[in-house]
């Protein structure tokens, strides 16, 4: 008797749910709101489970950092020496004061690689070690930037346990950022 009551209650509830659902569905379809029940664009709120974050690769690239460092160094040099300097010289002047010139005199030892200087355009003059040898040609070495990939693929979503919830997943975006060279 008790079980029968429970069963009939359950069946009654199902019937009520079906009727109520059908009535509400019919009302919504008559009102024309049935197609507007779901938002097309997902809102981005604080509780969004997967935050889509784009990483600006340019800011963190090594080339940008080196460029910034070079700029800083140039600013410091300008602050120290207010006199205008000659842009560059392939042939150094006869009495070269090393502090005032932008040329760096390096005695080249063979089998030792020349380290790239910090400044972008630096003239490295090869000085002859002995007077008997013919004068070595002037070698111009430019500070090279490290190779940076043109495009880098960033996956904007991570798989976390929170992804296993009722929240709709965001559209998957493979953020491809092209490195801008300024």
């Amino acid at each position, binding site marked *: 008797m008790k*079980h029968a009551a*429970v*069963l009939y*209650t*359950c069946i009654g*509830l*199902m019937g*009520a*749910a*079906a009727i*109520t*659902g*059908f009535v*509400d*569905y019919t009302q*919504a379809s008559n009102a024309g*709101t049935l197609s*507007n*029940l*779901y*938002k097309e664009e*997902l*809102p981005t*709120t*604080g*509780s*969004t*489970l997967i935050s889509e974050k784009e990483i600006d690769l340019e800011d963190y690239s090594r080339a940008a950092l080196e460029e910034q460092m070079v700029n800083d160094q140039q600013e410091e040099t300008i602050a120290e020496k207010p006199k205008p300097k000659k842009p560059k010289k392939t042939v150094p002047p006869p009495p070269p004061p090393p502090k005032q010139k932008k040329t760096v005199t390096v005695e080249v030892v063979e089998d030792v690689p020349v380290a790239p200087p910090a400044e972008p355009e630096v003239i490295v003059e090869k000085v002859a070690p002995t007077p008997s040898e013919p004068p070595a040609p002037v070698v111009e070495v430019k500070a090279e930037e490290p190779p940076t990939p043109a495009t880098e693929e960033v996956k904007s979503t991570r*798989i976390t*346990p*929170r*992804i*296993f*919830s*009722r*929240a*709709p*997943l965001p*559209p*998957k975006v493979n953020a491809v950022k092209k490195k801008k060279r300024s």
Partner: protein
Amino acid sequence: MNIRLLTLRRTKQVFTVTFFWLPISFFSLLLIWNTIPYFNFSKDFSFIQERAVLFLQPIYNWSFYIHIFAGMFCIGTALLQFSSYLLKKRKKIHVWSGRVYVMVVLLLGAPTGLYMSFFAKGGFAERGLFMFMAISWFFFTLKGFTTILNKHVLAHKIWMMRSYAMALTAVTFRVYYIILYLYDVPLTLNYEMSLWMSVVGNLMVAEYLIYRKSKAYLTTFTT
């Protein structure tokens, strides 16, 4: 008994636990864990905000909260029901968790699910599928309940396996959804595919397991 047969049986048990019950338990508990935050009744969830128009209706609003509350208990208690250890050694636990499961499904989960299925996401077919899920979940559970009241244990097992297959669609749907999402399937297609795969797949697995379980019983009709 033959030692080889015993070893084979033991290996089968270990494989079943490792590759079937362990993932199911993990994802079920994860689903329960992710459901808990909804009970601060905040609207600041993307699931709710996506259905903001629907949640303005008090019936839909309460149906949702009742449904997820029922789902938590249903999935939690169902995990205990298929343990042969509990069934043999702690039968009281099986009986009481079974009662909770049946009452929660019949009184709360299935009716609210049926109401919400009218407004389910997707097309007409998906709404129909949700309705089928709610009705079949209710019917399978009801049959499982009535068969055990009549002391028909095998039929009770069969109907409860079908009922659990329907309950587990909440878990398998999310698993398929995430897998297809990782394979860059468009979201709408992903949603529909995951839904159909979870319902049809779960039913097929359940029927296969039922066939295996009751094979010996079924052969009694043929011979």
